[in-house]
C-alpha cells in the first residue's frame, strides 16, 4: 500500500500534481491512498519551501514543480 501526499495551498500547479497522482494510480492500478494537504500550518510541519510537494510514504520526492504522471510512476516503481 502506497501513501501519497500532495502539499500545496491550492494553486494550479498543486491541483495538476494531485490529478496526476490520481491518473498514475489509475494507469497502474496500484493500491494507494492520496491525501491533499492545503492548510499552510499543516504544511509547514513537513518543512517545505516551495510548493507543490509530492510525498510518497512520508518522504519528499518532488518539490517546487509539477510531478508528471510519468514522474510519479517512475518514482514508485523505483521505490
Amino acid at each position, binding site marked *: 500500500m502506497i501513501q501519497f501526499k500532495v502539499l500545496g495551498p491550492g*494553486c494550479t500547479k498543486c491541483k495538476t500534481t494531485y490529478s496526476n497522482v490520481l491518473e498514475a494510480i489509475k494507469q497502474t492500478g496500484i493500491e494507494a491512498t492520496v491525501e491533499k494537504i492545503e492548510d499552510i500550518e499543516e504544511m*509547514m510541519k513537513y518543512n517545505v*519551501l516551495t510548493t507543490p510537494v509530492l510525498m510518497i510514504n512520508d518522504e519528499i520526492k518532488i518539490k517546487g514543480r509539477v510531478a508528471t504522471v510519468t514522474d510519479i510512476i517512475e518514482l514508485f516503481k523505483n521505490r
Partner: protein
Amino acid sequence: MFDWLQHIADWLIYNLIGLKTGSKLGDALNFFFYDTIKIFILLGLVTILMGIINSYFPIDKVRDFLTRKKLYGLDYFLASFFGTITPFCSCSSVPLFIGFVKGGIPLGVTLAFLISSPLVDAVSVAIFLGMFGLKTTIIYVVSGIVLSMIAGYILGKLRLEQLLTPWVQELLKNQSKEAEVYENKKTSFREKLPIILQDAAAIIKGVYLYVLGGIAIGALMHGYVPTGFFEVYISKDNPFAVPIAVLLGIPMYSNAAGVLPIMQVLVQKGIPLGTAIAFSMAVVGLSVPEGLLLKKVMSAKMLVIFFSVVATCIIISGYLFNMIL
C-alpha cells in the same frame, strides 16, 4: 541581433500579404509578428539560462547558505540576488517566508528575497530585453536588486516581528535549533537538463497567453495611437505622474508578460520610461492576491507597512530613472 527577423516580418507583411508600408494595419501586424517571435525566442533563452543557474543554487541551498553564514549586510544582497534567479509560483511565498524565518534568517533579509523574486524573474528579464534593449534591462535588474535590498533593510530595521500572526510567532519561539541537513545529491548536468527544459517549458506555457495578449494590445496601439499621444497627460514635468502610476499599478494583477509589451508602446507614444518602469514594478511586484496570501503570516498593520515601504521605494526609483534615462 534581430535584424533578420525584421526583414522576414517586412517581407511577410508588406510583400507577401501586400499591405502598404506605413499603413496602420500593416504596422500593427508587422509589430505583432516581429515582437511575438522575438519575445518567444528570448523567453526560451532566458528561462533555460536561469534554469541552469538555478539548478546549481536550489532554494534549499540558498536558505542553508543564508542561515549558516553571518554576512554583515551582504545577506541582503545575496537574498535579493538569489530572489531574481529563483522562480517560484506566488503560492509558494508563504511556505518560503516561514521556511526562511524559521531557519533563523532575519525578517528583513527574508522580505528582500520575497520582494526581488517576482520583481526580477526570467520572464520579465526576457521581455525587457526584447522590448527595451540591453541597457534598460541591466538598469532594471540592478535597480530591482538594489530596491529589494533597501526595502528589506528598512523593513528589517522596523522590528516587525511582533506584527507577525500569532501562529507564526509561536512557530518562531519553538524553532528547532537543529540545523536541517541539506542533502546535496550530486546530479550531473546531463541528468539536470531534462528537468531544466521541462521547467522552462512550464514557465513559458504559463505566460504565453499574457504575452500574446500584451503584444496584441501593444500592436494595436502601435498602429493606431499617434506618437506623442500620452505626452499631453503624463509628461516628465508632472511631479505626480510617478506616484499616480505606482498607485494605479498595485491593485492591477498581471505579470510582466502582459504589462511590458504595452509599456513599450506607451513609452514610444510619449510616457517617460522611468514612469513606465515604476508602473510595471508596481504591477509585477505588489498585488492584491499576493497580499491576501501574505495575510496568513502578517497582521494587517504589517502588511500595510510592507506594501507602503515597497511602494515608496518603487516611486523613488521611478524618479531616479526619469532623471538618468
